[in-house]
């Protein structure tokens, strides 16, 4: 039985837990699990602080008004809290920057890795918003609903990931 004090679980245990989260998502919120819309909600609120016209942007307005996006924004904050709790209770201490970046890309300095993280995050969410979902919404949820578009999105994600990872070192 997986417990919080274990340092790790099998990928199967974690996958089952995430799959079971579809039950409250569909029954209580009438939506599927997703994560990337919350970045639009955050971006829309930030934009509205500097740009009085942001709330008139139909795309931003949609993500600021609905309860579904309140739920999803709370969900991603909960993800950070849950991961914090899990790492603490499991006794797992991580370096500030994962060692894999030095091993696979040669990036050593923190500023260089932050610049890489920012640009990666930018492309990540630009892609997710163009596609209309991310690895959660299209991937975990879309494929579980046998949606054709989501299955194509997952194939494209793997293609993009494989091509980009091929440019990195292998070890």
């Amino acid at each position, binding site marked *: 039985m997986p417990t919080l004090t274990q340092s790790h679980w099998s990928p199967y245990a974690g996958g089952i837990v995430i799959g079971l*989260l579809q039950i409250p998502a569909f029954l209580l919120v009438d939506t599927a699990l997703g994560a990337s819309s919350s970045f639009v909600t955050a971006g829309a609120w930030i934009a509205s602080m500097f740009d009085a016209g942001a709330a008139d942007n139909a795309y931003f307005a949609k993500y600021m008004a609905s309860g579904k996006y309140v739920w999803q924004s709370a969900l991603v904050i909960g*993800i950070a809290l849950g991961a914090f709790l899990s790492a603490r209770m499991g006794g797992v201490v991580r370096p500030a920057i994962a060692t894999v970046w030095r091993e696979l890309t040669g990036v050593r300095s923190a500023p260089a890795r932050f610049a890489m993280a920012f640009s990666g995050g930018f492309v990540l969410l630009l892609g997710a918003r163009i596609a209309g979902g991310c690895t959660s919404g299209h991937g975990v949820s879309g494929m579980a609903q*046998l949606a054709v578009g989501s299955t194509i999105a997952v194939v494209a994600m793997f293609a993009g990931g494989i091509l980009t990872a091929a440019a990195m070192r292998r070890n």
Partner: protein
Amino acid sequence: MSFLWLAILGLMMGAVFGIALEKSRMLEPGVLIRQFQFKNFTMLKMFMTAVATGLVVLAALTGLGLAELHPKAAIMGSTIIGGLLLGAGIVVAGACPGTALAQIGAGYRDAWGIVAGGIAGAMFYGYNKGWIDSLVKFGDQGKLTLMDLTGLPFWPMALGLAALILAALYALEKVRPWQDDMAGLPGIEDDRATGESGAGKVVAAG
């Protein structure tokens, strides 16, 4: 439902999500990148398990009339172009949108950069949606599902695909035990590196 209740529910569900992502190591950037190099299969195993579980759950919920499906539209251009960008972003960021938040909680400081970049990317799309969509939104098939293509109901296909996924995972696990891909991740002993089991924790290869 009130916004407050939705926020509390979201926090609770998110905490469970975050625990699963941390414990099963989906949040390690090396796990994601090496999956795309076919050197670590943790991500594929966890992802397909979540899909299979979701298929069974949704077969039951829709079969009992408790829930309706919410499939996303199949727009070929934006789905493929967006998916390719998303995949490239996962490798450069070392995270997908949900796991970036899990990385912050788990202690990776650079994940703040991923989230900041992600918010900037979402804002960029919001301000430039008009011309971006005019370039990528072609081949709109509507909310197309496998049910539309085959004429069969959801539940037998969902259970059938779940069984296929389970069989594939069983075969993959035979060839590639999951423990092999965990060795050497933060807080997990790497027996291969020390040459003997139980010989202290080696923190490496996040």
